[in-house]
């Protein structure tokens, strides 16, 4: 059934070296539209590096990254964002010098349909577009449950809410593909459950494909359609959560470790 969905993201044969360290070796990753695809693996397996390759922060030695069939390889980060790939960050990268709403409106940067001249002259188009953007961004905040904090300084939010803010900011870009880098890190059980629901709604209500890098196995097994397991920069296994849980190699290399 899942095979019928069109291929959204196709990473093929990606290798990365940092100095003398081989971070990724010939890695493939496929994410289908409407799927939640998780990447798991022990610390240092290369998960965050793989996200970096997809969004353009890391330049691979070889291999290709395609989104909806279009080759993104070699294109800078901001162009990939425009093409529809957005990520969140493992170490929070909240814009601490702005309010919560302004953070999300920065996510809407590409959707503010006015020029510099419009902002200088405060044209009707500027006012209309800023209003529309603010409303849109409030919706995104509402989506993650932070609408009531729109005007607080972002730096004042507790840790778990900053993670949600990152997600709201990312979906304000209106991407086709959202890369989540350990969104549950530092969250308690209840917050993680809410996060799981939000991730499902991102796929279901917003029709955004999700690639999830996460250590919380309960969350991963709960929300994922497909899982890819990385170990020492190589792909160890790929399959449904069921298949992965039953895979003896994975159990040996990774799950057994816990």
């Amino acid at each position, binding site marked *: 059934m899942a095979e019928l969905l069109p291929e959204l993201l196709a990473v093929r044969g990606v290798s990365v070296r940092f100095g003398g360290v081989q971070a990724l070796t010939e890695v493939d990753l496929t994410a289908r539209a409407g799927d939640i695809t998780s990447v798991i693996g022990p610390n240092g397996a290369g998960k965050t590096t793989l996200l970096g390759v997809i969004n353009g922060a890391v330049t691979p030695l070889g291999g290709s990254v395609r989104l909806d069939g279009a080759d993104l390889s070699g294109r800078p980060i*901001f162009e990939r964002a425009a093409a529809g790939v957005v990520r969140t960050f493992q170490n929070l990268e909240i814009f601490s010098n702005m309010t919560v709403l302004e953070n999300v409106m920065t996510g809407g940067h590409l959707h503010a349909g*006015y020029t510099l001249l419009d902002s200088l002259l405060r044209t009707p188009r500027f006012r209309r577009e800023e209003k529309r953007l603010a409303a849109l961004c409030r919706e995104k905040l509402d989506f993650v449950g932070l609408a009531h904090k729109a005007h607080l300084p972002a730096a004042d939010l507790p840790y778990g809410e900053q993670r949600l803010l990152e997600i709201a900011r*990312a979906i304000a870009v209106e991407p086709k593909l959202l890369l989540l880098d350990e969104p549950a890190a530092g969250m308690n059980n209840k917050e993680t459950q809410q996060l799981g629901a939000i991730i499902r709604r991102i796929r279901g209500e917003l029709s955004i494909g999700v690639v999830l890098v996460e250590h919380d196995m309960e969350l991963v097994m709960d929300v994922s359609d497909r899982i890819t397991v990385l170990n020492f920069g190589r792909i160890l296994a790929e399959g449904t959560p069921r298949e992965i849980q039953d895979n003896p190699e994975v159990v040996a290399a990774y799950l057994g470790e816990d």
Partner: protein
Amino acid sequence: MAVSARSLQLAVFAGLLAAAPLALPNDYYINILILCCFNALIVMGLNLLMGYAGQVSLGHAAFFGLAAYTTAFVTATAGLPVWAGVPAGIAVSALVAWLIAVPTLKLQGNYLAMATLGFGIIVSIVFNEAVNITGGPSGFVGIPRLKLLGYAFTSDTAYYYLAAGVLWLATLVSRRIIDSRTGRALRAIHVSEQAAQAMGVDIARHKRFVFVLSAVYAGVAGTLYAHHLTFVAPSSFGFNFSVQLITMVVLGGMASLWGAVAGAFFLTSLPEFLRVFEEMDILIYGAMLVACMMFMPSGLVGGLGKLAAWLKRKLTANPTPGQKPGQKPGLKADSRG
């Protein structure tokens, strides 16, 4: 709410600028006020670059000087009218900024500081050594006074109102840029280039834009300066002035429009107040710099803001139960200035 508060601030600022000369006894003070306006103009641009976008420039005096010397050359040496010299001066500043922006702004932190510092020093050495064009260390004399549309700005008061008007306009432009997608992108770059790019912000383009914009501010100030004094010398555009500009930004308050104005007016007029100490003035200047940074780390505006917040808390000491502090909308937006 926030919008009207900001319009009010701009209106008050216009009123203060208009009323300032009335409170001063003579032309000497008007001249200091004019210098304050020039410096505030440069500092406002530098604050957009440093305070908002987070990119240090230790060579901003160069852009001020490039414009001043260009218009001096165009009007006095080449004999063209002032209305040609002023745009030429601004254009040269902008062009040079545009050319060095891309390789320079790739650098980070201390390396960026070094590169801009080096650029500033190179330019100031050229001002000193290209004697044929600049007049060398003894300066460039005989720059015509400003004359626009048949009106000659002969009185200092007239020139002040011109400078103040330009400053006010620059404030308006800055305000409108800050409160737009461009301003948000610049602030985003300050905190995290990674995240800004991930949101689709072309950071190289934005950095270049704000760098050139700040050079234009400095250029406008430079041309007005040259046609006001009718004389320029390289010592006004050296490393020391670049450092003074940065000090004005930080002392006023980073990422605050009013901070830039406050810092520039304060530090430009300070030496005048210190004159009574005669030779001790430089000592006191240095000591005040250290003391301000030690005891008011967020600058004059930040310090005043804290004081205001403290007073506000004192006055509203009994909030309604259950209401968390800071939940009122617009509270933060206003306080940032």
